[in-house]
């Protein structure tokens, strides 16, 4: 698979013995595919021979990885909250700008598609005149903001597992960040009862229910989790309750202990298997009451919430 089209090796822009430049190249670089990097490094004069290259690689990867780990562990829940809010702002703003740019560009050019993809096409046009220049420039700004949204999403993916390893593993990085943001911090999330976690993000529906106008919401933001969304509607309340219970425990483990708890994840998987197993039961699994009374993991009858 080694070929010149693969891209540049991590060492190619790094002066020898510059560990910080090496860290930057290791952390942020990429390539379409691998190549015979040791040989290329020797050819490029980066290292005297293969052995010297591996020595340099060892030193550089240890340094880069140690610094990255420390940086991610310094990041805290508040940074995650800023990130997730900024990501949502970018997404909303990018869509608004793209819509405006598409409408404007549609009056100037033929075949303008709506959305970010449409803006991307408009942004690549060559303007002829001041008006076109403004419309195309606006489309380019929309694309930039959409790119920033994706970059922030990448940062959340990397930071969330450091801030809350169990929560991020269970919920995924983005949902973990959203739960922390909705609660106002990892500590306050850890102190919430699981019934509250279950409906975080469904405050409108919850208050409608409390003033007697609606049934109680079964789930809030955790609806985005596959365990809830991928469960058949009649079992979603149970799934949401089971997931919220374990998410609460995960947040507590992350806040108070900070260590990964394998059993938490296994317990949830087993519980979900049971809930989803109802769909395969001969009677359609309508009667879940008896089974939930046995399970004893906080899975009380749905009506009690």
């Amino acid at each position, binding site marked *: 698979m080694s070929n010149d089209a693969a891209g540049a090796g991590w060492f190619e822009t790094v002066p020898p013995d510059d560990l910080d430049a090496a860290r930057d*190249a290791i952390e942020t670089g990429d390539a379409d*595919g691998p190549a015979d990097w040791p040989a290329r490094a020797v050819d490029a004069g980066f290292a005297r021979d293969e052995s010297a290259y591996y020595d340099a*690689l060892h030193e550089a990867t240890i340094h880069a*990885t140690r610094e990255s780990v420390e940086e*991610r562990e310094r990041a805290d829940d508040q940074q995650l909250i800023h990130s997730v809010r900024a990501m949502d702002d970018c997404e909303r703003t990018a869509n608004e700008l793209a819509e405006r740019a598409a409408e404007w560009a549609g009056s100037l050019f033929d075949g303008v598609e709506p959305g970010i993809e449409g803006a991307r096409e408009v942004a690549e046009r060559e303007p002829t005149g001041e008006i076109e220049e403004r419309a195309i420039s606006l489309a380019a700004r929309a694309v930039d903001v959409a790119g920033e949204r994706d970059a922030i999403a990448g940062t959340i993916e990397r930071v969330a597992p450091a801030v809350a390893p169990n929560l991020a593993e269970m919920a995924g990085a983005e949902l973990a960040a959203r739960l922390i943001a909705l609660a106002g911090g990892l500590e306050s999330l850890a102190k919430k009862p699981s019934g509250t976690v279950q409906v975080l993000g469904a405050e409108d529906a919850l208050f409608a229910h409390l003033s007697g106008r609606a049934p109680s919401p079964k789930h809030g933001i955790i609806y985005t989790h596959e365990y809830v969304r991928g469960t058949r509607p009649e079992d979603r309340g149970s799934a949401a309750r089971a997931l919220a219970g374990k998410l609460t425990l995960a947040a507590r483990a992350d806040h108070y202990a900070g260590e*990964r708890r394998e059993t938490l994840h296994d317990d949830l998987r087993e519980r979900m298997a049971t809930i989803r197993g109802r769909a395969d039961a001969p009677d359609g699994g309508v009667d879940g009451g008896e089974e939930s009374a046995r399970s004893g993991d906080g899975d009380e009858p749905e009506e009690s919430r």
Partner: protein
Amino acid sequence: MTNPTLPDGVERREIDGETRLATRGEPVYGEPTADGWRAWDPRRSKLGGMLELGLDTGLAGGETVLYLGAASGTTVSHVADFAGPTYAVEFAPRPVRDLLDAAGPRNRLFPLLKDARKPQTYAHIVESDVDVIVQDVATRGQATVAVRNAQFLADDGRLLLAVKARSEDVTAAPDDVFGEALDRLRDAYDVLETRRLDRFHEDHLGVVATPK
């Protein structure tokens, strides 16, 4: 030593009165040692389990290795003891702290804080034509991870994969999960051997494969 499938640098040694798999190197996680040999516990390591069960891993010692899902470095430290250059990819920062401790005294072990699902983020570091990919990642789409990383493997190289059934789908029977994973794997590999690792790791399948 009596087992022909053990690579050079891995031996069965008498440690604490028991004959155990062992490699020679600095202790990493408080494992028992004797005469500079560190016991390799097949219960804590999928690859250790595969060797103990006698799968034909094709390992001879001295290989260039890409290890996906290195976690805190328990297994990869043993691999680096008998293999050549070893690239250790792990995405979660906390275990990587321990991985760094294992990598410090092993000058051909290269720790990388990267996501194994995104090989383009480390293709500028990991060399082409590695002899072995060892994979032990506990996320959904384990076979897809292996397929995406096939680009690193030499044509006659080996993939040593442990598939964890519960990471894929808890509601399905492990055998169904393994069947699906093997189907996906065949997009890029010929599967040479499979073996349940249940004696050491519940609901895990050990797979030896080579690129198509």
